[in-house]
């Protein structure tokens, strides 16, 4: 395990690269700059935002932020992405989000120590998010992996499952604390430890 990961910063604007460079070095990362070639982290222009976000995620991007972004937020996202990479390397089978614990091995979900009964689809949805906490799972990805191929555009299934999960897992159903919707893109699990 490396203590100091190195990050490649790609942007065509020198001021942006300088800004990220200083923010990330202060965060203790090694930084390499490049002017083109889009790979790990995609900063996206405004035109047709949803479509490009989805495309970037499908290409293997871990996450995205849109300009203008907050350097603190970028740092936080990078931390989350790295943690999840470490987590998947060490195969952490239990994901904790607030009072909720998702055990991916025994396929059980508990809230404040008490088991919560989920429908199979609700569990599938939540587990898919929990495998990569903090990362956005696109609508199409969720639908394909939980409901199966052919259901990629049945977004209302997701809405039903998300609503059910919130009711069962969250204090106040209307203010999303752990399952966050990105309009037009997908869902992510926030606050995972």
């Amino acid at each position, binding site marked *: 395990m490396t203590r100091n990961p190195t990050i490649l910063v790609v942007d065509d604007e020198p*001021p942006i690269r300088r*800004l990220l460079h200083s923010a990330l070095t202060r965060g203790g990362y090694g930084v390499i700059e490049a002017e083109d070639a889009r790979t790990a982290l995609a900063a996206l222009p*405004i*035109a047709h935002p949803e479509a490009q976000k989805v495309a970037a995620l499908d290409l293997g991007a871990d996450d995205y932020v849109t300009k*203008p972004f907050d350097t603190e937020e970028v740092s936080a996202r990078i931390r989350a992405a790295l943690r999840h990479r470490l987590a998947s390397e060490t195969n952490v089978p239990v994901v904790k989000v607030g009072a909720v614990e998702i055990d991916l091995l025994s396929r059980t979900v508990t809230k404040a120590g008490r088991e919560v009964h989920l429908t*199979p689809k609700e569990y599938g949805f939540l587990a898919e998010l929990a495998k990569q906490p903090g990362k956005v799972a696109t609508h199409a990805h969720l639908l394909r992996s939980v409901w199966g191929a052919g259901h990629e555009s049945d977004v209302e299934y997701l809405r039903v*499952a998300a609503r059910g999960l919130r009711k069962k897992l969250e204090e106040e159903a209307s*203010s999303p604390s752990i399952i966050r919707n990105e309009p*037009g893109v997908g869902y992510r699990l926030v606050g995972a430890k």
Partner: protein
Amino acid sequence: MNEPRPDPEALLRAASREGQGRLKVFLGAAPGVGKTFEMLSEGAARRDAGVDVVIGVVETHGRAETEAKLRGFEIVPRKAVEYQGHALEEMDIDAVLARRPRLVLVDELAHTNAPGSRHDKRYQDVEELLAAGIDVYSTLNIQHLESLNDVVASFTQVRVRETLPDRVIEQADIEIVDIPPDELIERLKEGKVYVPHEATRALGHFFSKSNLSALRELALRRAAQAVDAQMLDYLRAHALAGRWAAGERLVVAVSEQPGSLELVRAAKRIADALNAPWTAVHIETPRTARLGDAENNQLAQGLHLASQLGGQVATVPAETVTEGLKRFTEEARATQLIIGKTTRSRWFELRHGSIVDRLVRETPGIAIHVLPMEQAAATAARPVPTPGKWGKPVGYLVSLGLIAAVTGIGLLLSAAENLTNVGLIFLLPVMVAATRYGLRTGIVTGLVSSLAYNFFFIPPTHAFTIQDPQNIITVFVLLAVAGFISQLAARVREQALLAQHSAGQNSALAGFSRLLTGIGRREELGQVLCAEVARLFEVNTILLLPEGADLVLRAAFPPGSDLGMLEDAAAKWAFDHGRPAGRGSDTLTASEWLFQPVSAGGKALGVFGLASPDAQAPIRSDNLPLLLSLLDQAGLALERIILGEEIASIAQLKERDRLRAALLSSVSHDLRTPLTTILGTLAQLRVVKGDEAHIAAARAEAERLNRFVANLLDMARIEPGARARSPEPVDLADAVGTALEDLRRSLGDHQVRIALPADLPLVEVDPQLFHHCLINLIDNAAKHAFAGTTITVAARREGDGLVLEVLDEGPGIPPGEERRIFETFARIEGSDRKGGTGLGLAIVKGFAEAMGLGVTAANRPGGQGACFALSFPPRLLRELVPAE
């Protein structure tokens, strides 16, 4: 291999039905089988299933059981029509259209409306309802069907006058209402059957068991046929290349004879059975140029009926009927020809040969049906001899003069030398008279010539007796030559006349198209069209073109003509339906003007009106084809002009769009990049140093600028109106939660209360646009609310729809400003101090309307503060069925 490809015609038919209402016809064999009862029962079932059903018109004929069925229906009141002192009641079509039910019940599809109604026939009302997207249930007795009219009349002895074109029910769903004949007769005896007016005289005969059985068979067969036709349409549209009768083409020859109408109906029946396209053709020979008005009318009726029954119509000029039919059937690649058995005399056939015989001989590849035709009625007598048939007096004078001169010359010649063949010179006056003055003058001249020859030259001279039989031959030869030559000459003259006529038509068309080519503006086109038609047909003309929702008078000849209310209505109808209206058509016939749509590619582009200055029918039937050709040309020219204008404006739009896109990407890039750097740097500064207050101020301003840029870009995205929107089902709880997440920094010390019921349906919106709507609404509330107060986001059902409200506790909206605050850069007093850009609410309105939502602003009824509401119409709601 032959790839089965969808038949474009079938697809077109299906496409033209989209957005149309469905017609369902309850078809019965005879009155009294219970069609109305059945229709009401099914209507009631639909109503009970939650469909919006009203009754347009239903005749109960006083039957108690039917009347009982009416209960529970909403009935649209009928419209009273005054006609010759009688108060008649008809379906109020405008009231039904205004009511806009899902389904309307309209009894007796074949009914004829009272004079002065919008349409002559009820089925035309129904067609208008269908076109407006309203489903219709209706009832029909089989004998009212146009193509079965003759068949029914032939065995019931009752001729039904109210007929219905077959095309009306061709696309309809048909339900047979059937009871056995015995039962129907029983019901008749019990007085349960209302007897239609036409049948009163023949009551006993009409309701005989054999008749009822025959009618029943007809009804069942027709229904089976309709199902067949619809099945075929489906097969063709979906290219399920099955076996259907391919390649059959029918041609029916239509003449001026009265049996033609039946011939056309028969052709329709045969074509239907063969499932083949068919054409009614009229062969225009020199003889038809001499037809009287009554015959012309008969001919026009035949062709009109054919087009009403769904056939094509053609008129072909030719020397003889046989030759014309031969040529046309070859060109049309017809496989079957239908002609009537003519009522010509044996004598006519001996002279001209039987048309049937010659056709059979000369068109070997075609099956020929020869159908009997009704005997000519007494009224349709043969053509009255046209005046001038006997020739002008001057012809006789000239002929006499010529005979005198020839006699003189003959006498001189025979005095000089004894000539035996002097008789030949008498051919001269006969030929001149026959070619120049016609048959009868020729024959008279021949007679006089032979008398003169006899008197002056044949021994004994100066007497009318003939001794030598040889000379008798000479006299007869003279007469025969006169007859023969005048026949030939008359033919030539008629051909010349006909050629002149069609040359006149062709030159009118050619001249008109020449006139049109140079025209680039609508006004000019209107003037040329109006003046040309007015000149050719001696009528007053007018051209109306659409402007927005109205038809506007763009040209008239003579200039200054104006239209009354009725004419306006007729013009509008003709434009909307793409069919003629007004005098001489079958819609709104009380209008003095006849309106013809000017169309291209099946789309009406304008309406052309014509009226006779002396209030006669605007145009003779034989001139109609020329008029329609002229209008077709005008339609093409008009389309060309409109396309030209569109291309010009599209080019402009494209240029503007290109500029806008360039500006957008420049703004997006050049403004956002420095903002990102400024904001990012400020964020890091705060961590390093402790000068919080100054940095916070700089950061707040930078964020305000950032918001302004974001809104500006959003606004620019609304205005082209062309941004592709992709609605998907969105959970309001999701959307509100995400919006609050994004806003958490600008909410300040406001609390947010969320009041969303648990069972809300999903809403179909573009998630990104909706997100911006919510952000701007909540941001707006936070800006204007008093410090430390609560902002409420609530949703509730209202009627079938849904309302999402954002409520604040603040000064509220100044009275009268509820609308203005949604305008771009509109700011209410003092709001600029709070950092508003003046764009937020304009964006809310623009996005909301683009997604089909309603948006309103008001002050809260109870407390202080404003209430902004987004309303979702029922069509955007998706109720959730609990999963699994």
